[in-house]
């Protein structure tokens, strides 16, 4: 069953790489990555690092709050400030090691180009998703203060938040890896003749060992 071996090898290698790269990210890379992300995001919003290591973000947003019992006159808002704990911000850098693990698990001779290009794309995605997250959080804060958001508005906000926080960080590395790694894509989607996926085994090849031991008997 050569096909099963390819799957099993990919899964084993991918799992081992995920563990290794995520541990490396957690202990070593997350700090510098977070610093770079903050520097890049500061081109769009004002971010201050607070004492707890989290971020205090000021998102420019024009909105007007109608008069309410606690607010006798309508009020205009020009920006929304909120705090994000460091653990939440960390989530916007972890998709990169996940992408690396998938591409490296696929192996192949031409992995370097998808690895480099994919890393650049993942960096752009992380920045984009962080800015979208800021926007969603700011809008939801304004809606809460204004009071009374319609059902569709609530649903759109909930969907956006779910996608940015719970779904896309895990799905995007997979999609980017499949889009850029030709051999991996060809292995999963059989679209005619394609280069075979050459995943190095983590374990010694049993067939080779068996053949070596069986050879003298057959002779």
């Amino acid at each position, binding site marked *: 069953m050569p*096909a*099963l071996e390819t*799957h099993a090898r*990919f*899964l084993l290698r*991918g*799992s081992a790489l*995920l*563990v290794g790269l*995520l*541990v490396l990210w*957690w202990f070593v890379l997350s700090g510098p990555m977070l610093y770079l992300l903050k520097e890049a995001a500061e081109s769009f919003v004002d971010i201050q690092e607070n004492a707890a290591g989290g971020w205090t973000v000021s998102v420019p947003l024009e909105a007007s709050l109608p008069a309410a019992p606690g607010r006798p006159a309508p009020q205009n808002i020009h920006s929304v400030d909120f705090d994000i704990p460091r*653990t939440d911000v960390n*989530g916007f850098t*972890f998709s990169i090691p*996940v992408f690396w*693990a*998938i591409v490296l*698990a696929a192996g192949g001779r031409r992995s370097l180009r998808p690895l480099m290009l994919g890393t650049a794309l993942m960096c752009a995605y992380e920045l984009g998703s962080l800015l979208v997250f800021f926007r969603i959080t700011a809008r939801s804060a304004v809606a809460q203060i204004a009071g009374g958001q319609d059902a569709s508005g609530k*649903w759109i906000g*909930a*969907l956006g938040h*779910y*996608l940015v926080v*719970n*779904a896309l960080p*895990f*799905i995007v590395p*997979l999609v980017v890896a499949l889009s850029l790694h030709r051999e991996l894509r060809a*292995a*999963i*989607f*059989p*679209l*005619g003749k394609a280069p075979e996926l050459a995943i190095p085994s983590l374990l010694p090849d049993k067939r080779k060992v068996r053949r070596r031991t069986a050879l003298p008997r057959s002779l």
Partner: protein
Amino acid sequence: MGEQSHRQLDNLSDPLISWLLTGNRPVRFVATFGICLLFGFGLLVTPRVQSADREFSRALVAVSHGLVLACGGHAIRDRAILRAPGGFAIEMQDGCNAVNVTILLWAAILAFPAPWATRTLGLLAGSLILQLLNILRFVSLFYLGQYNMAWFDFAHGYLWESLLVLDTMVVFWLWVNRIVRLGAVTHAGA
């Protein structure tokens, strides 16, 4: 039996061959996948489905609790919360019940051209595999949390979720591989 399986293989070959031969199939796959994914997540965040989702989480915690007890462990279940005698407690919230990766798998299977019987089999078997893995994840997190909270945060927030996505990809890959093998047999025999 032979005739029935031959008919099944004949049904299987048509979409597969057109998938292999038609140039715009990948574009259609990506578009259908994206729509199914958005539809699935859109449905998931509606209040009614959220309520069903919470009930599903409680059921998964009940299964995990049963597993812990069956293996000789000690735990107390309170709805979607599993408590250890030492005081540590873990709650299965939205996003922890593998529904997100199940939606991912469903979107990929539904987007791939295959007969409905094969799709249904893939959806059921794939979902079952993912849910079994998620129960393993939940039980492992229950014990890891009692041992070290820092490692629990890491495994809960990042590691296990990424591993489940990788498993989802491999489950889909196995399913496609099975279709291709069956289709190739029919094509060669025709």
